[in-house]
């Protein structure tokens, strides 16, 4: 290994780092001479340029494994890094109009740091790196959550998020230390070999448990979800979008690595009538709890962001169903779903960002009659929300279909996992209810104020592009699906 190889492998991250510093510096220089709005634009543009540059570099990257798995570059990680970067681009774009306060440079720099953390997370196959990347991501997000400096809600959310996040990190670290103790390695692949050899031991179970708890917090599944609604509601909306999408994509990716790579050898079954302890059963229980609780709790929410928070808890539950299928199809379905889900959610939060700032709030009532006030964004919201609800021909539908399909396929003789699928489908029928409530406010209810809302064209176009992507992934999922399926073996 030489440093040039290392640099090549890290080039995308590095360029983001540069972009972050440039944004920071320029903003400091412009601080007194320019309007806040202009500063936002300039810093945003720097960030976007950096991100686009990262994408260009990512596309050209050659597969390599460095430092004993500390840094792995292959097609799969590249795809996910691109996804993370793309989500960051979108986050930056929806942030530009958003009043994040005076610290413009810091804001965009922190977003980029977060993105770097996520990218490292995606490419890490080693416990320490995973932890460090996760912390980098989380710390950036804690800071971003608190960016509404004047708003109490934002501060509360940040503190809550931080407390929960810190504890979960502790759990994770604890679990990792046991794992290392039992297997004698920090490399995920070597751990897998060790577990295959030893089988399940009590200590290993403890390690597994703690790691799952740690990740459970990060991806917000029941019962480790409590921070999510408050953080989602309190954080500035673009940040919420970033938490709900970018960090989820990275966390799920690394979680998939853990369960499907390292713990694959552990016994356990989630099959109906054959439930035996193990990670699949744990995941199954968490999946059920998330799907049920997330969807039911979402019904009673009055705040759109809160509602979307609960919905994302429920979606984490769906993803778990695919995860515990523990098969090639399962992993493919998880990856596909995560991508579609992230795109859709980012679009939805983008619309919420754009609209809530103009109507002065993000409660359901604020969206009354939106179809008349902002027909185009309402139409986009319709698409995003229906995709979340899993209505064809949108990406969310196909993603969900494929997740459940993977679960059924796992035991297609006795349909051992069908019970999970049934719960999942039943709950997604429930979810349609609250999604429709939101759409009802937008399309059916009369607005108190019929004035048209003006939104910047670039924002509309960006969100439209996301919507088109969501539709495209629903109408023609084959290309992405085939791509993912081909590369899943690299896991």
């Amino acid at each position, binding site marked *: 290994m030489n440093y040039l190889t290392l640099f090549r492998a890290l080039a995308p991250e590095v360029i983001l780092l540069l972009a972050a510093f440039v944004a920071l510096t320029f903003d400091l220089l412009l601080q007194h001479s320019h309007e806040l709005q202009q500063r936002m634009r300039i810093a945003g543009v720097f960030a976007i340029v950096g991100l686009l540059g990262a994408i260009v570099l990512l596309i050209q990257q050659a597969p390599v494994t460095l430092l004993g798995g500390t840094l792995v570059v292959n097609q799969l990680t590249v795809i996910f890094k691109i996804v993370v970067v793309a989500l960051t681009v979108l986050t930056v774009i929806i942030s530009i109009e958003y009043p994040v306060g005076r610290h413009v440079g810091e804001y965009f720099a922190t977003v980029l740091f977060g993105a770097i953390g996520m990218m490292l997370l995606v490419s890490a196959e080693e416990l320490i790196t995973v932890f460090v990347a996760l912390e980098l991501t989380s710390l950036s997000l804690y800071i971003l959550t608190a960016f509404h400096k004047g708003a109490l809600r934002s501060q509360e959310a940040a503190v809550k998020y931080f407390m929960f996040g810190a504890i979960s990190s502790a759990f994770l670290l604890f679990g990792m230390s046991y794992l290392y103790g039992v297997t004698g390695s920090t490399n995920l692949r070597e751990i897998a070999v060790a577990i295959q050899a030893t089988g399940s031991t009590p200590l290993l179970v403890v390690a597994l448990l703690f790691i799952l708890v740690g990740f459970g917090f990060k991806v917000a599944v029941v019962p480790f979800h409590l921070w999510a609604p408050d953080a989602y509601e309190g954080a500035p909306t673009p940040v919420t979008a970033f938490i709900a999408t970018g960090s989820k994509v990275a966390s799920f990716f690394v979680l998939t690595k853990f369960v499907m790579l390292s713990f694959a050898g552990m016994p356990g079954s989630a099959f109906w009538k054959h439930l035996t302890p193990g990670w699949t059963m744990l995941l199954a229980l968490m999946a059920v709890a998330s799907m049920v609780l997330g969807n039911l709790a979402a019904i009673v929410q009055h705040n759109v962001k809160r509602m979307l928070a609960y919905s994302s808890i429920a979606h984490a539950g769906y993803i778990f169903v695919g995860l515990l299928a523990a098969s090639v199809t399962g992993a493919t379905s998880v990856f596909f779903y995560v991508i579609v889900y992230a795109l859709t959610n980012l679009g939805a939060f983008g619309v919420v960002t754009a609209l809530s700032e103009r109507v002065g709030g993000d409660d359901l009532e604020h969206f009354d009659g939106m*179809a008349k006030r902002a027909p185009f964004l309402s139409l986009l919201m319709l698409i995003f929300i*229906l995709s979340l609800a899993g*209505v*064809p*021909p949108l990406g969310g*539908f196909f993603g969900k*279909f*494929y997740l*459940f*399909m993977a679960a*059924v*396929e796992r035991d*297609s003789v006795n*349909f051992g996992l*069908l019970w999970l*699928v*049934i719960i999942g*489908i*039943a709950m*997604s*029928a429930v979810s*349609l*209810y609250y999604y*429709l409530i939101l*759409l*009802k406010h937008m*399309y*059916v209810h009369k607005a108190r104020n019929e004035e048209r809302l003006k939104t910047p064209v670039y924002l509309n176009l960006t969100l439209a592009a996301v919507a088109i992507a969501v539709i495209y992934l629903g109408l*023609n*999922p*084959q290309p992405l*699906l*085939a791509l993912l*399926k081909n590369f899943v073996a690299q896991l």
Partner: protein
Amino acid sequence: MRADWSIYISFIGAGLVMLLPRNAKNLIRWTALLTGVAALTVALTGYLAYNSWIKTGNAGLWQVINLPWIPLLGSNYHLAVDGINYPLVVLNGFVCVTGILFSWNIEERVKEFFAFFLTLIAAVYGVFMAMDLFLLFVFYELAIIPKYFIIAIWGSTRKEYGAMKLVLYSFIGSALVFIGVLAAYFAAGGITFDILELSKYPIAGHIQVWVFPLIFVGFGVLAGMWPFHTWAPTGHVAAPTAASMLLAGVVMKLGAYGCLRAAMLLFPAGFEYWRWIIAWMAVIAIVYGAAVALVQKDFKFIIGYSSVSHMGFVILGLATLNVTGMSGAILQMFSHGVVASLLFAVVGRMIYDRTHTRQLDELGGLRKALPFAFWTFLIGGTASMGLPGFSGFVAEIQVLIGAFQMSPWLAAGAAISIAITAAYILLALHKVFFAEEEHVTGDGHGHGEVVGESRWNLPGITCPEVVASVILMALLVIVGLYPSIMLDMIKANVALFPGVAR
């Protein structure tokens, strides 16, 4: 032009309507109408071509298009037509055109209305033609959402409740279908979603027994199958006229069609296992729907429940699994589609939009005020009763004969409803169109003009309404008097259905 152009034309029409300026209402209406007519023309020309092909003694599917779609799943973009779905495709076209005509008076958010309407129409075309289970499911679910908005925005009488109930029922139904589809797919090896391929695969009996009811009930929910019918009356009542027409006229058929094409075709053993229960549930629906219609106070509820009753005939006909019964069921789908559209148009558009009430006690004496509505209702009602000369008769008699072949008790049970149907139609006819003439004493000879001033001062029936009503009535009579135009192709194809008895 290929038959699938009906789908694309409707989608394109929906898109066009979205692009038009909000205030150009007439332009929007005409665009929608032309779209509907164009789609219908495509469907109709294909229908006639297929019919003449059938006349030369052929039968079977006409492939429309078959392209790989998601090869990873084994799902193809496969559309095809035959004598079973072509009548329904044509029905959809007619209901679309007449529905647009009956919606001519919508003033609020015209653009969105027609956009949703045409999307729904397109999806329905898609369901009827899809020969790939996954594709069918996609179109089927796509049809659910526009209904919600059409009802919730332009409806009346607890519209938001009705809309939500309808959508949730549909969605739960489709959830059942979803589970069934997955199970079928894997039970048949997990290679293909193509219905025809799947149907060749012998799925193990014990799986069929539990998967069949999932799919059948899932689709049956939308077909208004008792006891999952409760969405239907509330949904119909809440919906605006065109949507009621479409719901009762076409969407309920989606369910029945799904039962036939997906559940019955793929799971013959499961169907055999559940057949009797389904048949009896259908008979209960037939009688129950009619009996409940008899005691309704709201005009539209009468028609709503009558739809439950009539769809019972469809389910019963399917359950008979013999050529006569199933042909009757398919013809009944067409016939009821037309009848229900016509009746809902009378109730919703001609009467409610003018009087702003549907309560039987508040209406009355409309025969003089709205003679055209009277005649339309009379013809629709007569057809609904299953009196000969209208399409409903040919359909119902075949279902009865088919049911008789299964068990005379079924036929007897179903036959009772015909008298009840006559009773509620006549009662409604009396209360709505007569009733107020009551105080004027007749002299037993019809001599002496003694009709008082009508309390109604209503705007006259408009041209679009007349055109649309005439189209629908003509369909009833044409198919009623010359059923061969439809029955030949239905029968030829039903006879090909696997396991069907002579």
